[in-house]
Structures are given as C-alpha cells and as structure tokens.
C-alpha cells in the first residue's frame, strides 16, 4: 500500500548560495526565503514537506511541548531483505539521518493556551510509512488523550503501510483505528490534518477518521495510486484528482488551511470543546 515514494522537493547546492526548486512551479527560491516561508513556495503556494519538530514548533506554544513514547523504534521481525538490502539497515540509516526513532513524533502541549495531544508524522523517515512502532506510538498517544480527556490531533504524511513489516504493518491500521474508536466512545475530539502525501493504508485508517478533517493545500490524498487506477480504467485522470481540493469537493475534507494559519485555525476549533 506504500506506493508513494517520490521526494517532493529537490534541494540543490551550488557553489555559494543554497536554493530550492519548487517541484510544482519549477521556480528557484533562495533557501532562506523558502524556510522563512515555512517550506511553502512564495510563488505558487506549494506546500513542501517539513519535519515533525518544525511542525511542532509551528503549532505549539513556546516550550509547551512534551515528547512522549520516544523510546519506541522499529524492529526487523521478518528479517526482510530486498534488492537494496535489509530493512534493519534502512531504518538504522533513517534514524541516523533524521534524529528521530520512528516515522511519527508524539507528545502533548498547548496551542494558544489550549492543551492537546499530538502525533506528527515525518515523511523523511522511510516515507512516513506506517510500521508497528508508528502504530504503537499513534495508539499510545490516543490512549494518553483518552486517559487525560484531552483532544487528539494527528498530522499525517505517509506513503502508506510499511511493506517491510508485512501484515504486521497492515494490522496497525486496525490498531490505530481501535484507538480512535475509544475516543469516539468517550466523546473526545479527534482532529486529523492531512498533509502531502497521505496515501494507502494511512488514508484508509486513522487519517480519514477525524471528527474534523483538515488538509494543507494541494496535498496528495489517496487510497490507490494514480498509475494503478489509470491502468485499471485505461484512461488519463484529471490533474486535480486526489488533491486536497478534490477531496473537499467530494465531501471528505472539512477545510483546507494554509500552513501559516494552521495554529490559529486549530486553536479556534479546539476553543469550542466544552469540557
């Protein structure tokens, strides 16, 4: 199910200056400007990927975020090997490269003074794929929200289930949704924020189950891959197919919110939670 593996933004180093080429409009933007604009293209509003901690810093009040369950990391329980080597080597490289131990960072903090529990996926870590450790952290965070009667927010950025864990990764879809079911039962709000990309097994589990579903502009949100569908139906699909805007048109997303407005938008929604 994890079919989305393409990087979305290319960073290029020239001799002196560092610039970024927007994958959507192809314009070249100084990296400093790119970063200042929260990894969003100033030209076409393309929302590039950001790391978990960058997002946490954007959303939570200063020094309010407390990380939880950061002791959880992947395990190669199937001893999975493909052409490019072992799963173990892949996740060890990802841990070194990203400085995080799984494809999601979990914790709690305050958003404009309102407490909330959060899980933020990180696309840099094996394409944000849903492994057993990812599912465990997302479930544990929802349990923390359940036990403390706090609203739960999940930011998704994922190609889907992690193939290297076989059906164990598939079962994380059921596991994370079991956590959502308990929140529903206790009437604890769960907000899902879908960012680029949210596909496969992640879109078909917790990411689509928000009481409120919010998307960043232009994000790819899909169950099946475009190529697979084109092969199935034997025709080309429209350009906006499976984008945030398409999903909103078809009734699956409540609102599309720019990254710079996300914090205030979330705290505004959470301010309606009377408990």
């Amino acid at each position: 199910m994890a079919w989305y593996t393409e990087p979305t933004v290319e960073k290029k180093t020239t001799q002196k200056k560092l610039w970024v080429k927007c994958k959507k409009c192809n314009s070249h933007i100084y990296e400093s400007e790119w970063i200042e604009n929260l990894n969003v293209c100033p030209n076409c509003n393309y929302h590039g990927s950001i790391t978990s901690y960058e997002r946490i810093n954007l959303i939570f009040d200063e020094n309010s975020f407390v990380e939880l369950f950061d002791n959880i990391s992947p395990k190669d329980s199937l001893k999975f090997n493909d052409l490019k080597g072992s799963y173990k080597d892949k996740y060890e490289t990802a841990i070194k490269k990203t400085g995080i131990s799984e494809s999601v960072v979990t914790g709690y903090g305050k958003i404009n003074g309102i407490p909330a529990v959060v899980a933020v996926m990180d696309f840099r870590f094996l394409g944000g794929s849903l492994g057993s450790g990812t599912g465990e952290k997302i479930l544990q965070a929802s349990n923390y929200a359940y036990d403390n009667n706090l609203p739960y927010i999940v930011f998704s950025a994922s190609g889907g289930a992690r193939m290297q864990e076989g059906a164990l990764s598939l079962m994380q879809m059921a596991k994370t949704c079991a956590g959502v079911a308990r929140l529903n039962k206790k009437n604890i709000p769960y907000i899902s924020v879908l960012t680029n990309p949210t596909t496969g097994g992640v879109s078909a589990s917790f990411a689509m189950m928000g009481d409120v579903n919010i998307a960043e502009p232009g994000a790819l949100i899909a169950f099946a891959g475009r190529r697979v569908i084109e092969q199935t139906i034997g025709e080309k699909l429209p350009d906006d197919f499976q984008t945030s805007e398409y999903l909103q048109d078809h009734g699956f997303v409540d609102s599309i919110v720019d990254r710079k407005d996300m914090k205030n938008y979330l705290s505004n929604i959470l301010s309606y939670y009377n408990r």
Partner: protein
Amino acid sequence: MGLSDKSVMELEDVALKEKKKSKKEQLPWDVVQISRHPNRPILQDYLSRVFDNFIEFHGDRFFSDDKAMIGGFARIGNQKVMLIGHNKGKNTVENIERNFGMAKPDGYRKALRLMKLAERFNVPIVTFIDTPGAFPGLEAEERGQAEAIAKNLTEMASIEVPIVCLVIGEGGSGGALGIGVGDRILMLSNSIYSVISPEGCASILWRDAKFAPDAAAAMNITAKALHHHGVIDEIIKEPGEGAHSDYETTARDVKEAIIKNLKSLSRLSNEELIQKRFEKYSGIGKFSI
C-alpha cells in the same frame, strides 16, 4: 517383472516420503498459486455447504448494491449469524459482474450497515475474506474508498457482538482488513494475507514484478507465518492438495471451526468482548523499546 512385493512397498514408501518432503518445502509462492487456484472454493461454495437459510440483504443505502460484497442472515448449525463476505466468481461472466471480488466503497458501507444490523438483532458476525484488494478505480476514489475502509476498521473495533473472520483465499491488504477486524481471525492453510500483493511489492522494492516470489517469501504472507507473528489466531488445515481438491471436507472443517469459535466467544459479556478486542489489536506489532 521381478519386483518383489517388498521392493514395491519400499518404492511406495520412498514416493510417500518424497511427497511429504516436497509438501514441507512448499514455498510461499506455491501457496499464492493455490490461494488463487481457479477451482478454489469461493464464498458461494461455502454458502450451500456450511450455512442454511441465507437471507441476503442488498445495498448500502447511499449509492448502490455492490455485488463484490454480499451479506445477510444465515444459520450455521444451531447458531444464527450475520454472514458477510467478498464475492468472487468462478467464471468470466460471474467475475465481471462481481468485479473479481474487489469491492467499492459501496461494498464496505453495505458490510458496515449489515454489521450494525447484526448488532441490532444481537447475532454474531462471520466474515469471509477473499479479495485481491479494494477496487482501485476512479469512482472508488471519488466516493471515498479510504474513508469507507477506515470507517469499518473503527466501527468494527466497538461492534457489540462477537466477530469471527475467516480468510478463505486472498487476503488482499486494506480491502481484506475492511471486513477483517474481529475477535478471532482464522485462515485456511493455503490462503494468504498481505499488506500489498507480492507483485505490487516486487514492482516497488525490486523494481520488477517478476520478483513476486521473493516478495511473497519476504512479506511472510502464509497462514503459518502469520500465526507465528500473532496476526491470526487459528489455521484450518486444508485436505489433500488444497481446498480445491476436496470441497466437502474443507467445508466441514470450516463449519466446525466457526461453530467452535462462536461458542467460546458467547461466554463473554459485551464489555469483555470489546475490551478483549481492543487488547488484541493493541498487542499486534513488533517494535523495539
């Protein structure tokens, strides 16, 4: 011609041993082939052999009646159940009508409607899983394939009647799991359950679908491997060369296993049932701490 009875017996013995040996060395890819065997029994074959008095219900009340997914009340022995399952066909005409057992959102929504109906009538749910996957098509995406499956996973976690799921052929990814959350997960010994098809996995991680046998082995998709990893609870051993070689024995064993599991689940209160189901899924997965 000069062969004594003894040497014939010895030869037969060797042949039997060889046969057993080759059976033992059955590769995951061989199992994939059996699970997709054209004569492998499908839901319709079990309907007449395992269940009585099937009352089919149609439609999701939103858009259509998906023929890739069927369901309704049925009796199994003395027990009344809600039977829901992927509906593959045996020939081209049937398969086109039933979309090769690949359900659209309408199918998953129909399944959920019937599960709620089971809850209303307080009868346990039995699901038969046999699909290459949820349908990957334009209208499926348009009507929310992802949402439909996600909703089922969430609702099935808290449906207040026992749920027994049985993989009879192909357990294809989210399309299988969409009716596959329950208190007991059973698999026929030559069925498969997988996060992505071996061909799909091979074309991504090996850059070529022809490595599907390698992907099948690497992903641990057989009943035995999944039982070992705690994904499923019980394996129903198939007779002879596989379920396709003996429908009657397969059906008898399937019936026995379902009745046995329903019986043990009937002792639990609703609260215990939901709590245990939550604990079951909380415990699936392997990670480092």
